[in-house]
Every structure is written in C-alpha cells, then in structure tokens.
C-alpha cells in the first residue's frame, strides 16, 4: 500500500476509532465499576495491591437494572412508543413520498425541499412549538372550547399521545427521504408492465410498488425507530412525568443521581437492544453504497 493511500485511510479511521469506538469500550468498562464519591465518581476496575493486579468486576449495576422494575418498564415502553411512532410515521410518510416521486420533475425538487426545510431549524424549538399547541390552555384546547365542542380542556401535553406527535413531527423527513429515493429508483416500465398485464392501479401498487419499496421502508423505519428509542428531548418536554422512556432515565441517572456506572449499564443494555436494528440499517446503507 502506498504512503498516500495509507494516510488517507488512517486519518478518518483513527479519528472514528478513538472518538466513536473506544468510548463504547470505556462505557462498557465503567458499567462494571461502582459508584464512588470521588472525581471521577466511580471505582477503578483494576487495583494494584500486594504486587498483584486485581480485576474487580461488579455486576451489581446490571443486577440493579433487572431488580428495579423502573428500568425494565422504561426499556419496554421506549421500544413500544418508538415502534408505534415509527409505524404512524411510515403511514404518514409513504403517501407523501409517493406523491412527490410521481410529481413532474420540475416541482419534485421544490416539494422535497419543503419536506426537509423544517429539519434545518432547531429540533428543540420545533418540539417547544408543540408545548404551546398541546397544553391545557394551548391552541387546540382553546380552539375547541371556542367552537363549543368541549367545555373541559383535553389533557394532551404530558401524555404518550404528545410523544407520538413529537416523534412523528420531528422524524417525518427521515422517513420520507429514503422512501422517496427508493420510489424514484422504481422503474416506471415495471408499473406499466403490471398495468399492461391487466392489473388495476391499486393492484399495481400492492403487487409491484409496495414490495419493491421494502428497502426504503426498512431504512426509513430504522432511521426513525433507533434514535426514538433513546430520545430524550421529546419525552422530556412533551411526555411529562408519566411517560417513561429510557433516554430520559439515563439522563436523570447521570445528571440528577450522578450515578455514572448505572448510567453506563443503562447505555450498554440499550445498545444491545438496538444492535439488531442498527445491523439492519447498516446492511441497507452498505447495499446503497455498493449500487
């Protein structure tokens, strides 16, 4: 290998290894240590005493995760909320991607731009916007009471419903984009062939379009599902105390309880749970890279 080639490979390689891969090893290590009132606030795994190196692995953090049912409930409800939100997102996004992909090429780019544009403004502020809309004396309740449909405000903020709205709203473009890319690649002559062979439009969609957009649906779903499982801002701002999500638990464990080892164990278990979806997403990305 030439010197130039080596150096081009090694710079990003080393950077990502040091700042992306190694940190996980450290999280893994610290998840086996104990909380300590020191700086940093955890004990060392390795101790040097009597000329002997001792490795103390403390499985207590993991045991703790499985004894206190708060954690298990948080994991389960995170996965449930993320999964439901992903499915809603898929149903909302598919027709959008489909209509844009079928639009005349002149307007197609502009429509796509309009879908992406909100993502370029602050995520935090877009979620904040929904607080004002959903709260008890917020816009929706005020509007419905003004119409006389209800006389008591409906509690929407600080419910799971608000979290679904938040996730769908914030992650919609991430679902639309891979679907759109996939639908654009769909050869129009395949649709014409199906129609030529006697399939009415709805059947063309079910037998050709839908199966051939599977890759886009998987990619989009993973782009929404994986970050949603660990989402912090949305459950924190819209979900209230009732909504249990693991990203929020980790945050509180770290910032409020200052228990770094337990936070690390929470992170490691979350990572293990997400390993399968991440692999799925990676496989799709790799296939995209090949073609």
């Amino acid at each position, binding site marked *: *290998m030439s010197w*130039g080639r080596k150096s*081009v*490979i090694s*710079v*990003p390689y080393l*950077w*990502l*290894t040091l*700042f992306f891969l190694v*940190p996980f090893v*450290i*999280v893994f290590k610290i998840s086996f240590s104990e909380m300590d009132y020191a700086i*940093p606030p955890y004990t060392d795994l390795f101790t040097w005493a009597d000329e002997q190196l001792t490795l103390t692995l403390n499985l207590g953090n993991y045991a703790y995760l499985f004894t206190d049912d708060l954690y298990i409930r948080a994991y389960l409800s995170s996965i449930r909320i993320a999964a439901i939100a992903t499915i809603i997102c898929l149903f909302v996004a598919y027709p*959008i991607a*489909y*209509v*844009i*992909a*079928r639009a*005349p090429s002149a307007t197609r780019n502009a*429509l796509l731009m*309009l879908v992406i*544009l*909100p993502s*370029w*403004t*602050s995520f*935090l*502020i877009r979620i*904040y*916007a*929904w607080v*004002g*809309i959903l709260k008890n004396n917020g*816009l929706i309740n*005020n509007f419905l009471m003004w119409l006389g449909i209800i006389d008591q405000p409906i509690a929407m903020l600080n419910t799971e419903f608000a979290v679904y709205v938040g996730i769908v*709203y914030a992650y919609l473009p991430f679902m639309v984009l891979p679907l759109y890319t996939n*639908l*654009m690649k769909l050869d129009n002559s395949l649709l014409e062939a199906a129609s030529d062979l006697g399939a009415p439009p709805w059947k063309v969609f079910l037998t050709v379009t839908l199966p051939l957009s599977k890759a886009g649906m998987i990619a989009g779903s*993973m782009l929404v599902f*994986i*970050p949603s499982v*660990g989402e*912090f*801002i949305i459950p924190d701002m819209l979900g209230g105390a009732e909504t249990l999500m693991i*990203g929020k638990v980790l945050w509180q464990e*770290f*910032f409020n309880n200052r228990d*770094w080892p337990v936070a*690390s164990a929470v*992170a490691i278990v*979350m*990572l293990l749970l997400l390993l399968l*979806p*991440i692999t799925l997403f*990676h496989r799709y*990305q*790799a296939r995209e*890279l090949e073609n």
Partner: protein
Amino acid sequence: MGKKVSSLGKTYLTLGFIFLYLPILILIIFSFNESKLVTVWGGFSTKWYGELLNDKQMLGAAWMSFKIAFLAASSAVVLGTMASIVMVRMGKFKGKAAFASMITAPLVMPEVITGLSLLLLFVAMAQTIGWPAGRGMLTILIAHVTFCTAFVAVVVSSRLREMDVSLEEAARDLGAPPWKVFFLVTLPIIAPALVSGWLLAFTLSLDDLVIASFVSGPGSTTLPMVVYSSVRLGLSPKINALATIIVLLATTGVLTAWWLARRVETQSVNLPTGDS
C-alpha cells in the same frame, strides 16, 4: 415514476405540509405578541426581540454555538470527504467493514449514548494522559466533529458514487498524480456535495443539546443549552423571537444554497434525452 398526481394526492400533500409548517408559523406569530402569554394574543409588539438582543447570556451562548458549529462543520467536511473516498474509491482493505459500520452507526445512535460515551472517554483521557485538561469548547467540538463526519460522509459518498470514474482515470492517464487528480478533477465535481455536507454539519452542530450537555464544562454553554433551561421554566415569547430568527436564517441559507445548486445543475445537465 410517472407524472400524474391525483387531486387526492395533492390534498394529502397539502395536509402534510400544514402539519409540518403550522407549528412553526404559530411560533413566529406569537413572537410578535404583546402579552407574555404565548398562546393568547395581546396585540402586536416587537419588544421580545429587543429583550432577546439585550440578553447577554443568550448572545454569548449563540456566539459560542456559532464558533463550534463553524469549526465542527469545516473539520467534518475534511474528515467526511476523506472517509467517503476511503469508502468509495479505495477498494477493499483490511478493516473496511469495521470502518463502514463506524460511519453508518453514528447516523442513528441515540444521542444520550453518544454523549455519555464521549464524556467517559474525555474523563478517562484526562486521567491517563492529562489531555483534554478540562471540558469545554474543545470537547464539544471533538464530539460534534465525530458525529457530523458520518453525515458528511453519507452526503459526499453518494455524490462520489454518481461521478463518472473515467474522468479521474482520464486525468491519471494524462499524467496527473493521485493528489492532483483529487484537487483538480474530483474536488470541483463533488464541490456541491461538500457545500451541502457543510451546511448539514453546521446545522446539526448548532442544534445539538444532548451531546453538548454531556461533554460541556463550566463556561461553555451553547445556545440549545440556554434555550433548554429557559423553556424548562415555562414558555417564553423570547424563545419565540429566537425561533423566528433561527427559522429566518435557516430558510434563507438553505434556499440560497438550493437555488445556487439548481442553477449549476440546470447549466450543466440541460441536454435533451430519450426517444419519441
């Protein structure tokens, strides 16, 4: 795909855009509200903009965020472009699969995990090699460069794959060494992707709350952190005013970039294609 959009499709799309834009529009409208209540109209006023401009903490954080975003985006473009070249043009090498996962994983990794892991790394490094001595702008910058690199790599490598390899081969055939081929042929062709990659990285960095909260230290408060602590205390029209400014800046920035890119595109690929 075809060229026919039914009226049903148009209606659906319109509803979709209302869902996407109405919250932002409401945010903007209430930034001009006289009343402190963000959901009840109390008359037109621009006083919240004035208050925003006098908020020293907010301005300081904004400047900090801007500096970090600028540096992070610029470094991520360099690293991300290198990473794309490694992925698309370097063929097979030992450890390529691992490299590919390190590029795609950050795209979906929950921010709390990335934030926590980087913090623990910085703490461990400070303990063993004494660097980085404290946490602050530098550690936020490193964290942002890392996840932005992945996004830039995705944008740039898709452009790189579309590019005709024979252009590079022609340059090599005419005697240009690899580095010259890159700077004289490849770089000008993929330049639009670098610009969009930079803009994406800049926005992502400017927008990040979770990772920055983990790896920041005293004296390095970014704009999202100030906004977050402010909205935790309740809704404030000042945040609406800030949102309006951000929306305005982002929209102008993105639309300008988009317009420029389209102009370049229509100039170069305006060739007739296809049969009768």
